[in-house]
């Protein structure tokens, strides 16, 4: 066993450790510790990924000297290493990008609590990525739920409290359904490790025994995890939660938390139920139809919003619909398209939320469109980031959004039938609507007054420009985000290769 195989377990433990230590640290030290820990984990995940690119095989890592089926296990392949890198990189950039807002929004004595939540959030996401055991997945789903609500609540105003309450309740319903499903599966198969369960499930399907509980448990897993990852119509909690939270919290929630549950869902479908059995289950059709409806309804709702963070939140609902559409198609190509969209949307949406934070800063803290006029000129970094994000969302080649649409349409064409027609219609409609509301925002934030300020509103904007205080961390984060987006867009064929190899190792 070479050393890189320890990286999954060590990253999870390191984040846990640092999270616990942050309890006794004052704000500044907690901040530095969190930054270093997340950067270290990101670097370690890159090392692991490179090892896989150089030919390392998929490996399982038993926690303790007893392995499956008596003890806990982690499993890592190309896809998991890439996902871990993505999650840790975007977390780090989100924290950097929203730092100014963290200072303003969170009480001084509670800053270390916020960083504890962030570290445990990333820890749980990595554990969901690497785990090979259903019950461990459930435990870390719990940590994920609690810390996700924690980072929303940290900005203590009425909106966040109401939003996080709603988020919590709906999220817990999802966890509850997931737990029921795990219990049923345990009763039917006697195992908690995913690979073992897969064998038993295949045997049960072949023999036809216990068919009803098995179907129900797979359905419950699908619905439970969809509740937590904001599949329409289960997404009513999302706009409030993501729009009222602080900038870096919104970035992490929209970009990463939703995706970690989807990753777990794909893992369950692949490794617990099995690639051959899952297409026969009707849950995939349900996910497809709701995904398509989400694509359209998310965009339609975003069109009517006059508040930039709510608009971005509704846009997230639409983009999550793309992912579920890909999963619901039922083929490996569909899942590959979903994975690409996970990668692209994580980077783009996190960048857009950080940029939105910058735009709000340049407009006296307001989120409304009428105050944001010209904000893109006052804060150029945010303006450029919004342009890049818009081009990616519309699907212009050179940027990530194009490759997701391409792979999704290719996958849909392969499937054929009514699924193909509906998916393509939905992609067309949602692309057009997305283009409209994003370009609308661009027009607003770049509206310029080259003559001196005349109306009262314009004088106010001059004042905001003087009051703007954005720091180097924010600028660095935005620049890195833009480079990351461009990298994904330009290297999209390498990304597709990674995903395909990873999926082949996955099941």
């Amino acid at each position, binding site marked *: 066993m070479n050393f890189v195989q320890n990286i999954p377990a060590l990253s999870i433990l390191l984040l846990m450790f640092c999270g616990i230590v942050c309890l006794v640290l004052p704000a500044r030290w907690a901040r530095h510790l969190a930054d270093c820990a997340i950067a270290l984990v990101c670097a370690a995940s890159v090392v692991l990924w490179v090892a896989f690119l150089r030919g390392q095989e998929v490996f399982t890592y038993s926690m303790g000297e007893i392995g499956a089926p*008596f003890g806990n296990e982690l499993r890592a392949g190309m896809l998991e290493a890439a996902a871990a890198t993505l999650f840790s990189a975007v977390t780090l950039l989100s924290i950097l990008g929203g730092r100014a807002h963290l200072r303003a929004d969170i009480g001084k*004595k509670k800053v270390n609590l916020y960083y504890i939540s962030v570290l445990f959030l990333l820890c749980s996401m990595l554990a969901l990525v690497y785990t090979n055991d259903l019950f461990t997945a459930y435990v870390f789903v719990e940590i994920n739920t609690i810390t996700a609500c924690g980072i929303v609540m940290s900005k203590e105003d009425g909106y966040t409290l109401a939003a996080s309450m709603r988020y919590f309740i709906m999220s817990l319903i999802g966890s509850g359904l997931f737990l029921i499903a795990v219990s049923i599966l345990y*009763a039917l198969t006697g195992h908690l490790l995913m690979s073992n369960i897969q064998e038993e499930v295949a045997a049960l399907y072949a023999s036809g025994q216990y068919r009803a509980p098995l179907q129900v448990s797979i359905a419950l897993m699908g619905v439970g995890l969809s509740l937590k990852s904001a599949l329409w119509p289960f997404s009513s909690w999302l706009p409030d939660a993501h729009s009222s939270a602080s900038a870096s919290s919104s970035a992490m929630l929209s970009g990463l938390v939703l995706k970690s549950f989807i990753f777990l869902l794909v893992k369950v479908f692949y490794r617990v139920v099995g690639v051959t059995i899952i297409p026969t289950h009707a849950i995939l059709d349900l996910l497809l139809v709701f995904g398509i409806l989400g694509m359209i309804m998310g965009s339609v709702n975003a069109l009517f919003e006059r508040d930039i963070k709510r608009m971005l939140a509704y846009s997230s609902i639409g983009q999550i619909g793309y992912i579920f559409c890909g999963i619901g198609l039922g083929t490996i190509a569909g899942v590959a398209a979903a994975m690409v969209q996970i990668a692209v949307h994580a980077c783009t949406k996190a960048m857009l939320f950080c940029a939105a934070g910058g735009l709000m800063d340049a407009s006296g803290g307001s989120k409304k469109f009428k105050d944001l006029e010209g904000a893109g000129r006052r804060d150029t970094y945010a303006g450029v980031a919004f342009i890049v994000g818009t081009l990616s969302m519309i699907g212009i080649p050179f940027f990530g959004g194009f490759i997701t649409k391409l792979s999704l349409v290719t996958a849909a064409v392969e499937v054929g039938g009514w699924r193909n027609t509906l998916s393509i219609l939905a992609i067309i409609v949602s692309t057009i609507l997305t283009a409209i509301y994003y370009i609308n925002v661009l027009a607003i934030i770049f509206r310029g007054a080259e003559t001196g300020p005349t109306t009262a509103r314009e004088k106010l904007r001059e004042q905001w420009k003087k009051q703007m205080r954005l720091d180097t961390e924010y600028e660095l984060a935005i620049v890195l985000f833009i480079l990351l987006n461009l990298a994904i867009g330009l290297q999209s064929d390498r990304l597709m290769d990674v995903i395909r190899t990873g999926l082949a190792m996955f099941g």
Partner: protein
Amino acid sequence: MNKEKRDRIYAILCTILTIVFIGIMLFMATGLPHLGLATNPDINEVPEFYVEEGPEETGALNAVTAMILHYRAFDTLGESCVLFVAAISVFILLRIDGEASNETVVAIDRRYEPVNDPILSKTFLILVPAVFMFGIYITMNGHLSPGGGFSGGAILAAGFLLYLNAYGLENTERFLTSKLYRRVTALALCFYAAAKGYTFYMGANGLESFESAGIPGRILSAGLILPLNICVAIVVSMTIYSMYIMIRKGGFNK
């Protein structure tokens, strides 16, 4: 459509949905294996292994403790972290960081809580030490008899709460301050994470670790299980106490 009508429709739809869900679950439950039959799928080699190999390998006579603190220790670490982050979230939500003066807070507290009530004080004078002893006993014997860190910790927490209610904040905060809470909890969890991290690393890499099973039946046996039980008990009791103090007072005083 006005609000009342909407609420009523919502309530009716929710009821229907819940009844449908219950119906589906009941129907599904009829298809599950009957409880306790020897031919059930969940009676396979896994429980057999735990029951048969467990005591020798781990040194713990209590198979449940062996399982949660040795074989599936990672899950238990996760659960302890769940407790921890739950406490953190309660802190974020409820802790008041303002400058309420100490005297006012203590005065308000005294108004609503029993003050030097003789019945409570005398009863708890006898009861609280017993509760603490019992809690410690349960924790320490976790690997030999039913018990363990979780239950022991809950009993210890009960002791703390009884003491607080009988003798008041000032007395309790002579030893249970914010600093103590933070340091002790962090230490316990860090120890758990470090110890188990060491075991995982050694085990996965095929190296020998210092853990030894000892002689089953002795109190000082079962490798790391006893220290871990103590850690878990500390975390549980501190969490429950801190949640109570958050709800009652909005934070530790000192």
